[in-house]
């Protein structure tokens, strides 16, 4: 008996990415730089989040030519983003053979109520979360991997830190609860009861949880690893920096050796300016990508 698209195969794929860095790229050249630097996967996009933010309008799945160009350029896995709830964009990406789909709030949601039923697909999905309720809902829908939402394209780590701490703290609370308290907790945070029981039993999420949304320096990547991330996504940070090759390598090494502070100090030398970044207080409510989905 041979089975494809099983939960084990989909979650397992994300397990293999642990301790690694997944980089946003917009063409073959960037994809090769990412692979050379030691990225464990690349995310093929039409524009990196900071450019999506600057361009405004509706952000959609990248054109297939870009995704294919990236898939043909590298041998590491290729991920691609589809709009939240856009069944057809997701099916098209699956048919193209991308290795992972990010059902992403970075793009303009196609459905402002429902997410995809991800368990129906052979291809695995990664989704964003800000808290345990959101994480458990996505797992309930079939997400095989999670990431913090953070605030994409800002170069500001504060939201990713908030989301990672929130999820970890709620897991600790859940683990310490008696079982008769779990149903009410499930109601309060809007989480599927059975998923919470599973998390309580294991003491951790049943899928890997990466950090994403605002990582701009090697120290940011190491910080997120220290807060319990299984790996990191770096979006605008790398190819918006002065020296992408050096920057990409430094992020990879800082992620592996996230408690070696002397090394991280060395890695941070000569990188030039990191992206300028945006202070959260200056973002209007409608510019907050993390609030586009629940």
């Amino acid at each position: 008996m041979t089975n494809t698209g099983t939960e084990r195969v989909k979650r397992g794929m994300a397990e293999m990415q642990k301790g690694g860095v997944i980089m946003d790229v917009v063409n073959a050249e960037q994809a090769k730089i990412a692979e050379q630097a030691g990225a464990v996967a690349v995310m093929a996009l039409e524009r990196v989040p900071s450019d999506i933010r600057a361009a405004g309008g509706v952000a959609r799945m990248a054109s297939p030519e870009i995704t294919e160009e990236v898939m043909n350029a590298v041998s590491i896995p290729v991920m691609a983003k589809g709009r939240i709830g856009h069944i057809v964009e997701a099916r098209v990406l699956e048919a193209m053979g991308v290795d992972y789909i990010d059902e992403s709030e970075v793009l303009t949601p196609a459905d402002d109520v429902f997410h995809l039923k991800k368990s129906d697909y052979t291809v695995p999905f990664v989704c964003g979360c800000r808290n345990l309720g959101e994480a458990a809902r996505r797992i309930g829908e079939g997400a095989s991997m999670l990431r913090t939402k953070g605030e994409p394209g800002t170069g500001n780590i504060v939201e990713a830190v908030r989301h990672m701490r929130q999820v970890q703290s709620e897991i600790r609370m859940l683990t310490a609860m008696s079982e008769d308290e779990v149903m009410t907790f499930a109601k309060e945070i809007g989480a599927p009861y059975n998923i919470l029981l599973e998390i309580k039993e294991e003491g951790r999420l049943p899928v890997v949880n990466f950090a994403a949304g605002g990582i701009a320096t090697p120290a940011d990547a190491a910080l997120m690893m220290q807060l319990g991330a299984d790996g990191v996504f770096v979006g605008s940070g790398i190819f918006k920096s002065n020296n992408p090759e050096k920057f990409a390598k430094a992020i990879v090494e800082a992620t592996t050796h996230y408690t070696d502070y002397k090394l991280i100090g060395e890695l941070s030398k000569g990188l030039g300016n990191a992206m300028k970044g945006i202070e959260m207080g200056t973002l209007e409510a409608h510019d907050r990508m993390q609030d586009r989905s629940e």
Partner: protein
Amino acid sequence: MNTIGVLALQGAVREHIRSIEATGAKAVEIKRKEQLEAIDGLILPGGESTTMRRLINSYDFFDAIQAFGKQGKPVFGTCAGLILMANEIEGQGDSHLGLMNMKVARNAFGRQVASFEADLKVTHVGDDFNAVFIRAPYILEAGTEVEVLATYQERAVAAKQGHYLCTAFHPELTDDNRFIEYFAQMVEQSKKTLAS
């Protein structure tokens, strides 16, 4: 007690640590080459082989792992680990550690949508072993000194050459510990041999 290390540069480290502990051996995450001196066997876990190779070079692990193997200490590579152990990789001019005399193909079953689970018969380990293949490689050609332990659709997916062991699939992703127990026995044996 035997101590088995898992190369912890990237990939499915936690799962291997859990499975080593299930055999009763001591498990250690290996992040620095000096740590190799204190272990009896080494696992090269699944992950991205290109990423792991870059980190092996960055942290000067290359010669240290080869020397570890040449001492006669057992090494077990899963998936990316199998690619690292081969002395020839299809379509690539150079190989990585070259510990085993075999030619391998990367992502040989296709992209992630083609990743699968199947029950295999594995020599020395048992029948009906649930094997999880994720963007897996397979062995295209193996030297006469290499014993093929399992095949899937006539492709070699597990092999042994002396004290080296490799699988294209991921025994660490299931609760079936028979494969890791076999490796733990190899470690036990080699420790006795090296001590005498």
